[in-house]
């Protein structure tokens, strides 16, 4: 007898998994999810039937709901028992072998299973090195320019956003907060350029919290638009230290591996002055994990050469890149180097862009 495959919808499969955990073995009233889901679940495991059932028998063929339910639960229990036995056996073998046991398997994580991105930067790649030597940040990295940052907001900022701006200004040395009086960005940018600003940072606000960040490198550099989330201001943070001092912090950039990631990393690096003052013992971290960039600001102290203590000061927030545009801010006619396209890029769980 052939077994027909019933198309499984994801929702019902998910729901049935949840419901099964709540069910008890012999409760007839527990079968709320209906016979459909059970059918689908059992048909998935068609190939893994036990010897106790005749080979062509499937649980879904029992017409009586209660009995079908019972048989299904029995099936699940059998499977679980087998799994436990297998585990125990493996553990015994491992103990028996002792040193010669094969090494423990590394559990699969999303980072392990990440789809290889062909734009991943090789450290020795000459082309990348050449590009980076001649791109818009080369002036900064060659020590020619000093960063000068202008921080502003969208129209009519509310208290939280203004406080966030002020705290950012203490974190980034040589930065100024200006009130945006409804001026269009295209008019602000030439003024900034004429006053030797290197960066323009616009914090967009929605419902009294910051939710967007536009970071524009000024002498026609790239413009990056980020989504800001989980903003914690200084007074909301537990166990924080005193306010940061005026020393320039060090910068840590973690996990920026692809070409795009490199560009963004350099974008962040150029915010801070080239020579950090180690006396201040402050460090600003931009850590990229699964396309989320976490920003933290710490003060560190070396207890001995193997241990370091860090204490968080300063605001913390997470960024997610939405778009990267080649010139300065121009949403209409700008040339976009990269735009987040949700349907293409978020389709695969293991594929990341940065």
């Amino acid at each position: 007898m052939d077994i027909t495959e019933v198309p499984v919808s994801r929702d019902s499969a998910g729901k049935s998994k949840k419901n099964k955990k709540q069910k008890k073995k012999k409760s007839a009233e527990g079968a709320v999810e209906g016979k459909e889901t059970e059918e689908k679940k059992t048909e998935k495991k068609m190939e893994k039937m036990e010897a106790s059932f005749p080979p062509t028998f499937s649980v879904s063929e029992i017409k009586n709901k209660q009995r079908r339910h019972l048989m299904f639960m029995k099936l699940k229990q059998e499977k679980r028992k087998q799994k436990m036995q297998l585990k125990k056996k493996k553990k015994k073998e491992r103990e028996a072998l002792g040193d010669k046991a094969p090494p423990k398997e590394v559990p699969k994580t999303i980072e392990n299973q990440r789809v290889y991105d062909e734009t991943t930067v090789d450290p020795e790649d000459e082309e990348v090195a050449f590009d980076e030597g001649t791109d818009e940040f080369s002036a900064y990295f060659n020590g020619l320019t000093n960063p000068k940052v202008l921080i502003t907001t969208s129209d009519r900022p509310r208290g939280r956003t203004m406080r966030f701006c002020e705290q950012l200004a203490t974190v980034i040395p040589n930065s100024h907060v200006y009130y945006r009086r409804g001026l269009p960005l295209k008019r602000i940018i030439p003024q900034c350029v004429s006053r030797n600003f290197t960066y323009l940072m616009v914090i967009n606000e929605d419902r009294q919290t910051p939710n967007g960040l536009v970071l524009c490198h000024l002498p026609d550099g790239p413009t990056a638009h980020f989504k800001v989330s989980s903003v914690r201001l200084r007074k909301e943070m537990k166990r924080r230290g005193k306010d940061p001092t005026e020393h320039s912090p060090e910068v840590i950039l973690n996990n920026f591996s692809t070409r795009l990631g490199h560009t963004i990393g350099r974008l962040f690096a150029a915010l801070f002055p080239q020579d950090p003052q180690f006396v201040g013992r402050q460090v600003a971290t931009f850590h990229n994990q699964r396309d989320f960039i976490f920003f933290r600001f710490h003060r560190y102290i070396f207890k001995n050469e193997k241990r370091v203590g860090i204490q968080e000061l300063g605001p913390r927030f997470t960024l997610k890149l939405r778009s990267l545009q080649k010139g300065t801010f121009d949403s209409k006619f700008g040339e976009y180097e990269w735009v987040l396209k949700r349907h293409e890029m978020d389709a695969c769980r293991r594929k990341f862009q940065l």
Partner: protein
Amino acid sequence: MQHDDVIWDIIGNKQFCSFKVKTKSQNFCRNEFNITGLCNRSSCPLANSQYATIREEKGQCFLYMKVIERAAFPAKMWEKVKLSKNYEKALEQIDENLIYWPRFIRHKCKQRFTKITQYLIRMRKLVLKRQRKLVPLSRKVESREKRKEEKALIAAQLDNAIEKELLERLKQGTYGDIYNFPVHAFDRALEQQDQESESEEEEEEDDEDVGQREFVAEEEVEESDLSDFEDMNKLKTSSDEEEEETDEEEEEEEEEMEVQTKASGSKGKSPANGSAVRKKRAYVEIEYETEPVAKSRATS
């Protein structure tokens, strides 16, 4: 026949008018042809046979006049005249079209026309300024992203990553001479390298000491004492920073330090030199009370 008064009597006061909006202080009229927007005897478009309004459509203003002879055909009752875009010319047009009409209607028409042109001008100005773009948020997407962010945060293990990075930077020496640790790392590395030759060196040193003490007794002793005390100082500073594990190693290394060049040893000892000098003097005062020895000490 249109009996205005009768109509007003009915809809205005006694019975229902579907266009009337009642509020606590005032009555408004929702009829689109109403000239003032209030529900009055003189403003009601239903209760006045001679009536005119100004309406605008897509930026164009029209003068609408009610032709009561066509009251039987309500769709054709209103006549419209397109007004010119020039404000003064349009006012003249209104005047000439409503030439013998009651003062009230003429006046109100012009007022309404003025208001309309003003708001049209403002609309045109706003379009030139910055437009606010409203981007719709999809709840599902937002909650998904939030979840992903939480998981990413857990996977990131930020504190560990930061600490690791800082320690690596320390090892690589980006911090230069600020911290005293590099000395110990250096010593430890050296100790690991020279572990094989340690025993030999010790024997040699003993031989040298034995040999040299006969000739240059004091200086040799001083130097060894010096190095001893420098190491002691190092030990002291290290204990300040809670490193007792290296004390034993320090003691082992004392003999090695003699063999090594002073330069290498003094690299990390520069901060401790001050204390070493102090220690030297203390030692001298206690043990060597003869002046010539002290003087030579001071000069060296």
